[in-house]
């Protein structure tokens, strides 16, 4: 299978804005999927609501576009009822960090064999640019006209603390490392979490003096620091999520046996 075969071409043109990072995320994913030699007819793509939620509708495979914040719960049901299926979840920072936070942390803890990919663009893109649980402190959104006064979640660190088997974060700038990590996540047993920090020029960049996609992209690049390196720095909080840098890399790799295997699902 070539990576392009995974596109649902009859759905073109797609609905994403010019400059959106989802295109990069999808290309990296498709490349990783094709290189992993997985079977698209034995893979189910699940998503919630938001821009990221629309990704599965452009993938040529069985897909379930569910309710806001719930894709991990739906995906768990699919995997447990038919463990032969590979189940991949596409979600966003609003879907995962806010309305679906409970399913996210319990999903990490429960360790069902799922690959969860979160497109984190720091904003509610589809509804017009409202503040999200990952919007950096001080940044502007349509619901924080005086700047965001809340401190953001670091989704990857949450996943590590909640017990996910594999946690990695890259930005849309780091395409090679991202592709490599997605491949790893796809074959990893148990709950694996891939956070892709992505540009949203339309809703996030525009309000924060970064009019073009390129400017947001450069900003992501400039503020990224390798996770390993970050640990040697003396800053209090190192990731951009807490007014520091975006730490990227692989955060944890555990080998807890997947829930599906622990309970010995019979089929």
């Amino acid at each position: 299978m070539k990576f392009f075969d995974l596109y649902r071409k009859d759905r073109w043109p797609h609905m994403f804005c010019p400059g959106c990072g989802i295109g990069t995320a999808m290309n990296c994913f498709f490349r990783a999927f094709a290189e992993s030699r997985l079977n698209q007819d034995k893979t189910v793509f699940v998503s919630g609501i938001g821009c990221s939620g629309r990704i599965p509708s452009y993938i040529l495979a069985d897909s379930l576009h569910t309710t806001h914040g719930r894709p991990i719960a739906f995906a768990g049901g699919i995997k447990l009822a038919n463990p032969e299926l590979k189940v991949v979840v596409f979600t966003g920072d609003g879907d995962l960090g806010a309305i679906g936070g409970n399913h996210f942390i319990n999903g990490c803890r429960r360790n069902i064999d799922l690959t969860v990919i979160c497109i984190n663009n720091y904003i509610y893109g589809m509804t017009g640019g409202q503040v999200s649980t990952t919007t950096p402190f001080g940044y502007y959104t349509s619901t924080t006209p005086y700047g965001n006064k809340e401190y953001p979640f670091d989704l990857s660190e949450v996943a590590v603390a909640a017990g996910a088997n594999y946690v990695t974060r890259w930005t849309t700038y780091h395409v090679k490392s991202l592709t490599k990590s997605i491949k790893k996540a796809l074959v990893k047993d148990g709950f694996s979490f891939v956070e892709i920090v992505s540009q949203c020029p339309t809703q996030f960049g525009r309000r924060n003096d970064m009019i073009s996609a390129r400017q947001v992209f450069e900003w992501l690049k400039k503020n990224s620091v390798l996770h390993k390196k970050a640990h040697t720095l003396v800053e209090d909080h190192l990731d951009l999520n807490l007014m520091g840098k975006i730490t990227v890399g692989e955060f944890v790799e555990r080998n807890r046996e997947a829930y599906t295997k622990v309970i010995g699902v019979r089929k």
Partner: protein
Amino acid sequence: MQGNEACVEGALYVGCKFFAGYPITPATEITERMAWRMHEMGGVSIQLEDEIASIAAIIGASWTGTKAMTATSGPGFSLMQENLGYACMTETPIVIVNVQRGGPSTGQPTKASQGDVMQTRWGSHGDYETIVLAPNSVQEMFDLTIEAFNLSEKYRVPTIVLSDADIGHMRGKFTVSEDIKFIDRKYCTKHVEHNAFICDEGLVPEFPKFGQGHRVHITGLTHDVSGYPKTTDPEIHAKLVSRLVKKIRNHSNEISRTEILNPKADTILVTYGSPSNSVFEVLSENHNIGLFRLITLWPFPETEMKQIAKTAKHILVLEMNLGQIYWEVERIARQAGCQKVELFSKIGGEIHKPDEIIKRLKNEVL
């Protein structure tokens, strides 16, 4: 066995292989019994982080072609409304058992009520139809759970077993009839990638289960027959949602079940669930009173109700709420010519006692 336990056995008997739930009084026994019995039957039972996740998981499971169920009570059922609508929109067969307790809010956890009757029909946003069955005994907890699976599979619609704390915790015997029917959803035989929701005059599309290479896209957004989102075309929306409603309403005569005694009596007691047990006692000593017991609440058995109301002079509706099914009965009965349609409410957790019913009727017929 308890009603709740009989419900579990009914589900397993009809081939339920996936259960997800969250503990809640007075439905917890279902989740507990499922935890060990499902394992014996080779299926999966899981306790999730909340009721939202529970209904989400059974919908996911159902898309792999697995019969799936969840159980809860009012507060949990409220949380499930979002994905109940999703199951209607995506035409996913699932069974939800709601063992009702007193509400609103956390209300009376250990007490019975019939306060969720309208919620089963109107609780989620938008237009839709569900099927709702109301058991009144341990036997019916077993039988109607099976029936709920059959109907849910046949019409690809969420089906609700609307029990209550009294029926759920009631202990009794049940027998397993030899002629129990099992209905499975019709699976797609052909590749349906672009026609996932195409259907004949039966209005129920064949089911393209995941993992068979159909490559279907399933969404809660308004979609056309391809399954792809088409959210701004008024005609597509009207066509889809009308079909979701019609596939149940058009088959209402096949779905609806009632128990009717003395249909020509002047006085008819309309009842369902727990209070019907008191009504039976009243009837055993008062042969001039008629009974109209709803086994199916929704779709409402309108044809049978009309028939009864043509000759009845007085219809008394007994409910453990302040009037829910009553409005449906009143509307239909008045149209059919019966002008005296009254409500006998009882809330607080106790069922109408036989002598209370007799007292209420005393000036009328006795």
